């Protein structure tokens, strides 16, 4: 079916006029109508806008103009990236009626590239969560098992790609929010190096950790999207000026002599033995392809969770102070302005967001700053040094993207239990390095993801290893069964 195809395949079909952008867009819109009432990936679907854009692309094709790699390709974005005039909720009640007055830089870049925005995707409220259960609007379901969560916080972004409701999507990753849902749903998800993709117009959660990245069906597709969205942006003062490569140049089917390190902390305590076994099998595949694999250690890994949750919530408590019911968003009625602030925020934010604001405010408050926030920042230095030292010996580090496959709805109702499930992803954000999750097999019928971690601005090497692995395996070609009967059973 056409909606199953990769970006590069769709590009060929469009360029050779075997399918029109309008037909392609309608195929996705129809599939969204068929499946999304059960999967609930989309918060907003932009039927008319998408069709209008598609017909503009078709006119361009008719004129015989050259077609860019993403031109006419239907895609969707997590609902924390601003889209001018298109409702952007961050899956929060407090932004229920927010229509951004400007586009995020990634929105502009994808529009300039000619991609067709199908809609905005569900997520954990303000990207706080690991299951998308914290959305104020709906629960997104995992297409491989409708009783399971899709992961989070970019759950809608992962499901839209896994269930072919979009050719690709953009997510954001503060502590694993691209890689973990990509792993749970069996798609490719990259968290780029901090500073590689502009955060301008990304609704902030934790500014020193947030990074936007692509979720795709193949490694090549991922590189194509990075070509469009990455690179310096003057509108983001943390954007880095670097020599942006053509990422598709790294799609080389050869890893002979490449040095891969296996941090033992990513295979031990807290990791489901079946997941560890599955990833070990992938390691053997890579070894067979000529990679030089050996064990290593990231000794401060166990401290990453507390350090992350103190730093991220501290930054969040500051970032979310802007939601005061004055300039945009929800406002509760009260007789004085302080009462209005307090009531607006009480009614507008969900439980997890309030919990994190409370934790972060406490960690920053007078008398506790040194013990919590400053201490966590020092630990962040040690975690970063672990990676620096490992990368003196290795080109790439490898481990599972998540400690378990997708879990059931409600299974992790204790907040701390949910936080602990981020152990394999948060260290990467603290260090600011790039990491990718790619399909790596199945445990109990659910996909698992192999995570490759690289040196800063070395996404290319990750793509090379990921591409080589993909050429030798068929995990990325397997699709969830979404026949009518399966959906009907799940909805009961």
């Amino acid at each position, binding site marked *: 079916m056409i909606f199953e195809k990769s970006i590069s395949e769709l590009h060929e079909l469009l360029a050779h006029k075997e399918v029109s952008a309008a037909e392609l867009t309608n195929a996705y819109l129809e599939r969204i109508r068929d499946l999304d009432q059960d999967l609930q990936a989309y918060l907003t679907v932009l039927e008319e806008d998408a069709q209008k854009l598609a017909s503009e692309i078709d006119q361009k094709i008719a004129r015989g103009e050259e077609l860019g790699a993403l031109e006419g390709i239907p895609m969707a974005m997590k609902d924390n990236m601003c889209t001018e005039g298109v409702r952007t909720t961050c899956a929060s009640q407090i932004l229920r009626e927010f229509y951004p007055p400007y586009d995020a830089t990634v929105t502009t870049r994808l529009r300039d590239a000619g991609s067709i925005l199908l809609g905005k995707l569900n997520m954990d409220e303000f990207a706080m969560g690991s299951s998308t259960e914290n959305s104020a609007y709906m629960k997104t379901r995992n297409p491989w098992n409708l009783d399971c969560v899709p992961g989070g916080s970019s759950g809608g972004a992962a499901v839209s790609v896994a269930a072919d409701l979009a050719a690709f999507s953009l997510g954001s990753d503060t502590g694993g929010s691209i890689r973990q849902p990509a792993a749970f749903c069996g798609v490719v998800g990259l968290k780029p190096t901090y500073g590689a993709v502009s955060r301008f117009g990304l609704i902030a959660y934790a500014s*020193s950790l947030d990074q936007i990245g692509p979720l795709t069906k193949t490694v090549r597709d991922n590189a194509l999207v990075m070509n469009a969205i990455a690179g310096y942006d003057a509108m983001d003062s*943390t954007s880095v000026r670097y020599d942006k490569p053509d990422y598709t140049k790294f799609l080389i089917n050869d890893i002979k002599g490449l040095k891969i390190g296996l941090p033992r902390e990513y295979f031990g305590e807290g990791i489901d033995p079946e997941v560890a076994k599955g990833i070990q099998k992938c390691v053997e595949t890579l070894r067979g392809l000529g990679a030089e694999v050996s064990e290593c250690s990231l000794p401060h890994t166990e401290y990453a969770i507390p350090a992350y949750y103190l730093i991220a919530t501290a930054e969040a408590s500051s970032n979310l102070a802007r939601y005061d019911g004055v300039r945009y968003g929800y406002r509760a009625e009260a007789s004085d302005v302080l009462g209005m602030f307090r009531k607006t925020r009480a009614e507008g934010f969900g439980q997890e967001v309030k919990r994190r604001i*409370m934790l972060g405010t406490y960690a920053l408050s007078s008398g506790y700053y040194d013990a919590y926030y400053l201490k966590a920042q020092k630990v962040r230095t040690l975690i970063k040094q672990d990676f620096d030292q490992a990368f003196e010996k290795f080109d790439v580090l490898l481990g599972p993207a998540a400690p378990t496959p997708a879990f059931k709805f409600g299974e992790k109702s204790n907040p701390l239990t949910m936080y602990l499930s981020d152990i394999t992803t948060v260290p990467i954000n603290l260090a600011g390095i790039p990491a990718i999750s790619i399909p790596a097999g199945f445990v109990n019928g659910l996909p698992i993801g192999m995570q490759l971690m690289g040196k800063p601005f070395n996404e290319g090497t990750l793509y090379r290893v990921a591409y080589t692995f993909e050429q030798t395996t068929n995990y990325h070609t397997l699709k969830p069964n979404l026949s009518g009967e399966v959906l009907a059973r799940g909805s009961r």
Partner: protein
Amino acid sequence: MAISREDVIYVAGLARLELNEQEIQDYTQQLNSILDYAAMLEHLDTEGVVPTAHAVPLHNVLREDEVKPSISHDKTLRNAPDAEEGFFRVPRISLT
């Protein structure tokens, strides 16, 4: 117990959050459990370690102070819960 019920009420005040009784109880219990876990950081010697605020070393990002187009007044006010004569309108700020 790292955090008391009074601490939770005080922090909620700093964060401009009105909490109900159930939330005060839940957050007292949950923040304690999270901070108990975070106490493992105390066992780590960080003497002389320089804190990291940003993974990528940041320097001052400066540019010429040029006037550039910005979002119009009307557009800015379009998302306002309450606006009047080009201003954001809010409930009274002081009692006097």
